[in-house]
């Protein structure tokens, strides 16, 4: 079937660009991509009251290349080596501005200029649309004719653009687009999240991550390039970086980054991933960088929330900042850069990401969390030991305190012993500390035990003679206990009755004795009397 140029309507350019570039800032990304593909090292974006200028110092375009750049849906670029390859990005500002001017210069040649009158193109399309609605008109301009009439080429002099590279000017932006494009923070945030930028000097692991990525890329002969990007909104300049900073983490900062290759058994190297876990076992403070992004050659695909399901839960995802950098040449992004083009390889990529997310990142975060907890428990124990050690001298005559120390240390000691004996996640570097503290705590328990015993002995010695005399002259009690030994304390009393008690119970009985029996006794005699009465009551209880 023979087709003519009338078979492709001009409206196609409006439909495609509207669908592909929903955010006006996407046009900035498209022109930056072209700059990177032209081997630019540096790109300046200048946002002025009536225009946006994107200037790169790349190779520039000669007349032939410029002519080719006008093409719609045709591109010379190698999808595996270049960022842009669809042949539509040049028209990304079709709905944004009235005029697009592209000036480009290659070394040793004068610059050339292309001018696109987008406003007139839009006006024609709109008026024909209106006519179709009102009069059932069949007038429709063909794409070729539309472009031919509104694209102008001219030669410039070297004075107009002295250095090589390309300058893109979007002139007379629609006021609604302009509002969002003049907010320096909003534009910076967008560019920092989508463009392959260097790491911020305020992120301490930036250089390490960058070196590692380059190392992987060299090893796998992969293309990955960063760009120096400066944003200038009406004279206020800002150099842009990847959005991660140490301050985004909580007070302890980031943990040394994890790295992992993304591989597929059949297709080989897919890319590399890095992730920095929060040292505090908590979510990343700055919610805008929380989690992972997928990047294709440095440009972001989709957004962070797209990666979250691969982790199964947000718990550990939100404690990381990181990226999955896809480098396989056959994995191509879709037009709006919201995902990769559907392919079996994409399925393999997502499987790989999922496996790394759950089997590596989640696992590492979990181990880290348990290690952190163990470390915290150990530090708490060490601190408690130190506190008691330093306070013991002051409390050695305070029975209540000694008992409290004894009880708590015993609990800690038993708890630690259990942890050490089982699968406690203490880091190797702290294992020695853990064993050491158990020994020290045990020794301290013994010391406290001795102090408690000495204290009781002293009490007993002090008034034993008078107590015995009194007891003999007290017929009601002495008759009952005449042939029985007199207990020193509650524990001895229970033992005299013949009941078996373990160490824990002894501690409890000592506590009860100190707090509720000794403290209520008027004197030693009264105390012994109470014990004897208690013995009588217990024996009666058992007789019943």
């Amino acid at each position, binding site marked *: 079937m023979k087709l003519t140029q009338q078979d492709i309507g001009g409206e196609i350019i409006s439909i495609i660009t509207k669908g592909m570039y929903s955010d006006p800032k996407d046009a900035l990304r498209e022109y930056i991509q072209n700059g990177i593909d032209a081997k630019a090292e540096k790109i300046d974006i200048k946002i002025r*009251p009536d*225009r946006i*200028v994107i200037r790169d110092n790349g190779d520039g375009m000669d007349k032939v290349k410029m002519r080719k750049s006008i093409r719609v849906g045709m591109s010379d670029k190698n999808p595996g080596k270049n960022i842009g390859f669809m042949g539509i990005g040049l028209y990304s500002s079709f709905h944004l501005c009235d005029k697009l001017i592209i*000036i480009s210069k290659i070394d040793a040649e004068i610059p050339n200029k292309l001018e696109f009158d987008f406003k007139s193109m839009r006006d024609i399309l709109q008026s024909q649309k209106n006519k179709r609605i009102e009069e059932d008109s069949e007038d429709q301009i063909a794409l070729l004719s539309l472009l031919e009439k509104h694209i102008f080429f001219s030669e410039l002099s070297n004075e*107009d653009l002295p250095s090589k590279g390309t300058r893109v000017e979007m002139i007379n932006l629609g006021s609604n687009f302009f509002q969002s494009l*003049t907010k320096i923070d909003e534009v910076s945030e967008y560019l920092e999240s989508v463009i392959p930028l260097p790491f911020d000097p305020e992120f301490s692991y930036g250089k390490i991550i960058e070196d590692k990525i380059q190392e992987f890329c060299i090893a796998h002969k992969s293309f990955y390039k960063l760009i120096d990007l400066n944003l*200038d909104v*009406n*004279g206020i300049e800002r150099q842009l970086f990847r959005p991660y900073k140490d301050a985004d983490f909580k007070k302890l900062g980031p943990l040394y980054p994890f790295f992992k290759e993304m591989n597929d058994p059949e297709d080989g190297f897919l890319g590399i991933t890095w992730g920095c876990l929060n040292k505090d076992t908590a979510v990343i403070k700055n919610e805008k960088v929380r989690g992972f992004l997928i990047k294709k050659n440095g440009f972001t695909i989709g957004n962070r929330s797209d990666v979250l399901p691969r982790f199964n839960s947000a718990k550990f995802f939100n404690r990381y900042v990181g990226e999955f950098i896809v480098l396989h040449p056959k994995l191509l992004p879709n037009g709006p850069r919201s995902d990769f083009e559907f392919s079996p390889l994409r399925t393999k990529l997502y499987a790989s990401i999922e496996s790394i997310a759950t089997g590596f990142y989640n696992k590492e975060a979990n181990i880290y969390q348990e290690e952190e907890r163990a470390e915290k428990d150990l530090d708490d124990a060490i601190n408690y030991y130190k506190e008691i050690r330093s306070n013991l001298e002051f409390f050695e005559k305070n029975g209540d305190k000694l008992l409290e120390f004894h009880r708590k240390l015993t609990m800690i000691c038993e708890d630690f012993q259990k942890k050490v004996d089982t699968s406690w996640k203490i880091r190797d570097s702290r294992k020695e500390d853990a064993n050491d503290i158990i020994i020290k705590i045990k020794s301290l328990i013994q010391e406290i035990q001795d102090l408690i015993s000495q204290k009781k002995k002293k009490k007993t010695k002090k008034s034993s003679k008078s107590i015995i005399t009194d007891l003999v002259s007290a017929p009601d009690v002495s008759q009952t206990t005449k042939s029985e030994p007199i207990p020193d304390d509650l524990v001895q009393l229970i033992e005299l009755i013949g009941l078996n008690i373990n160490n824990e119970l002894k501690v409890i009985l000592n506590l009860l004795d100190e707090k509720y029996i000794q403290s209520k006794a008027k004197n030693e005699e009264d105390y012994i009397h109470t014990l004897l009465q208690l013995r009588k009551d217990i024996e009666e209880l058992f007789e019943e």
Partner: protein
Amino acid sequence: MKKKDQFCYTDHARKEVIRKHWCKEQIKILHSTLGKKLIYLGLPGIEGLDILEWIDYLEKVIVFQCSEYKNSKNKTEQFDFVHLTELLENLDKSEKIKTYALFRGFIEDIVIGGFDENGGVFDIKDFVTVYNLDFCNGLTTPRNTRDLKGNIISYFKIDVIKKLVQYQNELCEQCNGKHFIFYMTVHSNFLESNMDEIDSQEITLFRKKFKSVTKGKNTLAVRDLKAYTYFKLAEIFKENSFHFEFLPPIFYQGSEYPNREKGGKLENHWMLTFTILGTKNTTKNDVYQQDMKKYLEDKFVFASNTKFQLFNDAHFPFSENDYTPSAKELLINSYIFKNYWLPLNYDK
């Protein structure tokens, strides 16, 4: 693009002499002294003639362009703004300047209010090294506008200068900036009542000396303006810890303009251009104290269509100080230059 039939107060022979043979000479010295290109802030007018004249020494320009007829059917100012935008854009494109900032509206509204008429936020992140505030009216002429409640409020040029010098002070450390030249041009019209604001015995004595015997209203007004400007700006520079030194002001006839009140009859205004050298005081000592009496008693520089000479005022019956009216001589013999700028890179 230039509309020849349009009145342009910056485009006449005296202005050109001042731009080329006064300011440019001094800017060249500052550029050489600092060893780098300068940051300009000013009101260049739609033709940007000062910027074009000094372009070899400028790195960045911060520009204000008013659009008085924004809401009327007259599209002149809209045209002016586009014209100035194109001019600046071409300078940027041809790499003559690194970047620029263009604010639309009256400088008083933008600097004090914080926004221009396009909704752009006014902010400065650069230490300005050349100010050229070429006002087309008097220093004390108020700019009336309404606040958010609809009340009429008045801004004065002195408020603008104060704010700009405050920015300058805040940016010294961050931008590693110290030295600057400040040019300001105003109408020589001046109401005597403004002098009530001036609390200076020295100025009062100076005025008493000649007030009763001086012939001619303008003779007195221009000297009052000189004293008033010195007093007001000195306060601002001192408050912000800048050493400052006023060079003798240039007295000249401005462009012919159509006086609306007189049915469009063409008239001339007498103008005064002030030159102030500034340097950040980085010590705990007081800022340099210029001999005000001498400054007030120095003759004016007079700019003709071709040259500068001393202004010998026939209406002023007192002898004033003579000196060589050379922009370069005055600058390199100044206290500021000798004591603060000279140890830098200046190549004689």
